[in-house]
Each structure stands twice: as C-alpha cells, then as structure tokens.
C-alpha cells in the first residue's frame, strides 16, 4: 500500500543518508585541523602524552580503517564512544541534547501553527484592505529578519527590559522547561509563523477562488462553515509540506537560537564537540540530525496521505 511504500522509500533514504553522513563526516573530520588528543589534553601536555592518547583513540590508524570501523559499529546501532567523555556512549551523550532541540522545535512548530494558521486565514479573508497590507508587510519584514536577530530582540525587550521571561537557560525537565522554552521558540516562530501565515493565506485565496467555494456559497452554506470546512482544510494541506520542507532549516535555526538563549540542545553539544574535536560526537550529531530530518519528512508524508484522500487514490 501507499503507506508501506512511502515508509519503505524513506527507510531506504535513511540508509543512504546514514551511509553518506558517516563516510562524509569521517572524511571531513579527518581534514579538520586541530588534533583531538591535543584538544582533550590541553596545551600543557607533552608530545609523548598526546601521541599516547592518539593511539588510545585509534587516531593513528588509516582513515579507511577508521571509516570501516565506524560503519561496522553503526550497523549494530552503535554510534561509538566519545573522545572527550572518554568511554561514554555517544548516543547517551547526544540523546538529551536531541530531546531539548526536538522539544524546542516542537514548541516552535506548535506556536507557528497557532499564530500562522489563523493569521494567514484572517489575512486571506480581509484581503485588499489596510489590515491585509499591514499583515503582509509584517510577514515580509519578519521573514527578512534572521532568527538570531529575532532572538536578540526578544532577549532584549522581553527578558531584559520587561523581565517577562528568563534570559535564557533550561530547567532540564518538563513542564518546568515551559518557562524557558517559550521565548526561544518565539524567536523561531518569527520565521516559521509568517511563512505558515503566508502559505495559508495564499492557499486560502486559492481555495476561495475554487469553484467549490462558490458552489457552496451558491447553495446557501453559511460563510462561517465555508471558511471552516472548505477553505481551511484546503489551506492546511500545503502547510504540512511546508513544515516538512523546513525541518532542516528549523534545526539550523534552533542551533543558533540555542546559543543566544544558552539552551543545552544539540547546538551546544555540537559546538562543544567541534571545539574539543570530539569526532565521534560530531559524527553522531550529524547522523542523528540527518536521520531525524528524514523521519520528520516521513511523518509529513504520512500526514499528507492521511488528510488528502486524493493522494491515496492516485498513487
């Protein structure tokens, strides 16, 4: 069936992407200047000590062998052990960070939908009025605003000036995180929200222009019901694809916003791994993120299949 086929196609993509990312990061990180052993031991360690650690970490082996080894481990579902946190599983190190970033992204998506869908619908209904003009200009300006800038502005006004939110940080557990998550999520919403609003507006206008809306109107279906049952569902369809398409951008945005708000997500893991040249962790983060993005795309595929009866038929 279609669901099975879609899942299979995405699963295949995960395998290909996993292979690509593993080999790619392995090759890339070998090119990175800066010695992991030196980064771990500090500048005060003697060259012999550094050599000893390089041997212990397996860094003195040929690159091909190292790639083969990490692929071999990966097949068994093992991301390897960290250089920095020696002896610790990479998976256990990046798991919490992934959870934080996923949580932040989820709240941002939810906020964006809450703001963007009604907003876009409203803009479509008031089109060609001053409100529409201001609304469209607003979304244009917000889209032109990079998320780190939005984060800075929010930090400045909401946290520092108004004291309405903590100036960053993280509680570490839900629901306590709610206090901390909403402002960084809002910063991400400044990008995704307007994007959704514009998509919904455009799709709603498309829907309003469709004969079925006019037909419903002509047979006396009340305006409210037309908006809720005819225009809105059709306007929501492209939003699913849009959110799926933006998963990668959202992760990247989250990584940046995390640094501004000191949220301990994948971003801070990544930066730390970069600075300490913790290759297995870097590789793990790249892999986990890539796979998450593909999985997220699978989710949107399935959602699309679930809500659009036409897809089920045509494929």
């Amino acid at each position: 069936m279609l669901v099975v086929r879609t899942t299979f196609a995405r699963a295949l993509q995960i395998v290909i992407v996993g292979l690509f990312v593993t080999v790619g990061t392995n090759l890339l990180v070998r090119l990175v200047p800066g010695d992991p052993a030196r980064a771990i031991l500090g500048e005060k360690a003697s060259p012999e000590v550094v050599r000893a650690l390089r041997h212990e970490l397996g860094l003195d082996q040929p690159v091909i062998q190292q790639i083969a080894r990490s692929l071999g481990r990966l097949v068994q579902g093992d991301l390897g052990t960290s250089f920095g946190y020696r002896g610790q599983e990479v998976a256990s190190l990046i798991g919490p960070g992934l959870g934080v970033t996923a949580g932040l992204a989820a709240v941002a998506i939810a906020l964006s939908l809450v703001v963007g869908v009604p907003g876009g619908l409203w803009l479509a209904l008031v089109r060609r009025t001053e409100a529409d003009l201001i609304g469209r200009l607003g979304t244009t300006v917000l889209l032109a605003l990079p998320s780190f800038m939005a984060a800075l502005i929010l930090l400045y006004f909401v946290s520092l000036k108004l004291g309405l939110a903590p100036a960053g940080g993280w509680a570490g557990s839900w629901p306590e995180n709610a206090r901390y998550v909403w402002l960084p999520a809002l910063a991400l919403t400044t990008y995704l929200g307007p994007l959704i609003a514009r998509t919904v507006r455009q799709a709603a206008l498309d829907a309003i222009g469709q004969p079925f809306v006019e037909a419903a109107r002509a047979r006396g279906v009340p305006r409210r019901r037309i908006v809720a049952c005819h225009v809105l569902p059709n306007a929501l369809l492209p939003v699913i694809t849009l959110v799926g398409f933006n998963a990668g951008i959202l992760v990247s945005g989250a990584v940046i916003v995390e640094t501004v708000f000191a949220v301990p997500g994948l971003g801070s893991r990544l930066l730390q791994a970069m600075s300490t040249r913790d290759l297995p962790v870097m590789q793990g983060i790249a892999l986990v993120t890539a796979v998450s993005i593909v999985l997220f795309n699978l989710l949107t595929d399935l959602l699309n299949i679930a809500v659009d009866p036409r897809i089920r038929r045509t494929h």
Partner: protein
Amino acid sequence: MSTEITTADINVPGHVAVRRQIQPRRIELHVGVGLILAVVVACLVIPILDRTDPNALVALPLQPPSAEHPFGTDMVGRDVFIRVFTAGRLDIALAALGVLVPFISGTVIGTVVGASRRRLVDTVTMRLTDCVIAFPFVILVLVIVVIIGADTRIPLLPPGAASVLVAVWIVNWTTYARLARARTHVLRQEDFISAARLLGFSQARIVARHLLPSVWPTTATYAVADALVLVSLIAALPFLGAGIQPPTPEWGSIMYEGRGFLLQAWWISFTTAGVLLVLGTGVMLVVDALVSNPRRPRLP
C-alpha cells in the same frame, strides 16, 4: 459555475483585467527594488565619502549615536556607521557570489538531468541531493568552515570568506538542481520540445537552446530569495563561532559583538539589524512581486 466561464467573461477585456492584476505587484517590485538599491548604494558610496578606517579606534567605546557617529561607537570605540556600510559591501558580495555559482551549476545540472532519458543519471543525482539536503546545513557549514579554515584566502576577500563560500557552493546547488529538474520535466511534455526532438536536434542543443532559456527564470526567482537566506546565514555564523571573523567588518560579527551590550549600547546590534532588515524586506518584496499570483475572487 466555473472558472473557465468566469475568466472568459472577465478576460475578454483582456488587458484591462491584466492591468489591474499587475498594479499591486508593480508597487511591491518598485518598493522592493528601491529598498535594495538604497542599501546597495549606501554600501558603495558611504565608505568612499567617509574614508574613516572601519577598524580605527576613533572615539571612546560605547558612545551613543551622534552627528559625528550616526550609529554610535562600538565596544572598542570604532565608528559603527562606517563599519556597517563597509560590511555591507562584503555581505552583499558574498551573497552574490554564494548564489551565482550554485544558481548556474544547479540550473545546468538539473536541466541536463531532467532532460536525460537515462534513469540511472536521474536516480543518482536525486539521491545525492537527498543526502546533501538531509545533511543539516549548519553542521555541514561549520565542519567545512573549520576544514577550509580562516587561512585559505580568496583574493580580495577577507579570511573566512573562502570557507563560507565553498560550504554554500557545496550545499546549495542541490535546490537549484531540483527546481530545474522539476521545471524541465514539465517542459519536456510540451510541444516545442517534442518538436525539437522530432527534428533530430541533439540533446545538448535541446538543453542549451530550448530548455535552459525556459528553466532559468524559475531558478532565478528562487535565487533572489536564496540571496537573502545567504545574507542571514553568513550573518548567523559568528553566533556559532564561524564565518567571517572580526575585526573584518561583517554584519553578523558586528551584531554578534554587540549582543553583549544590548542594554547599554543597543545601537551596535540594532542599527546593523535595521540595515539588514531594510535589505531583507526589499528582497522579500521583490520575491513576492516575482511569484505573486494574479488577483483572485474574494470570499463573498
């Protein structure tokens, strides 16, 4: 009721209707281009008119905007005004370079792959773009930036520029390739391409003379939006410890350096942000105008 009849009835006075459709788009286009030009011209002209070294310590640190220093001074006493507009040259140049190469390579690759009748070529290219797209962009950029390092230089560009550009070139061609391929697949169905095929034109000639001229406007529209994404990305990299490194004036690094002084010297980050926002709004308006749909009926 039907769109055909409606549009037939409305569009009989064809150009009247069309004129009305274009009106709002023209305004967006004009305002957008105006905003972009304003920033570009300012970036070109201001560093010529005011020959202050953007790295010179001209006044006390953290001075608020004044007649002498319209955007105030930064945390070491440099003139933010001159820095912002000097930075603009670099950022705009980088965005242009960063867009141009993937635009050309991606469009050509996508068109060739789209026109190709060999499944394998298509599959391999598309899987490759899958991988590059799924690879988190920021991570890839960070890694490439570190590999290429601040030490590799492109003539005329500051340290760090090479790494950013190469990273962007490696990643961004994929989107253009996908767009071009999709467009080519549509065009392939059309009569003039079939006609060219039947006339026995070579594949290369069909791609170069028939497909590319119809494909590039699609990718070019995307390129405009992409340029803005790129400016934002370049400006975001300092927040990740990468990108164009200070003291080279660059919008992102100015804002990044200023972020620690929001409460006592908002002007460092926010004047820069303002200029970037003007440019960004201009680009968005132009994109809007380029892709905007014709007017549609209102919900009664």
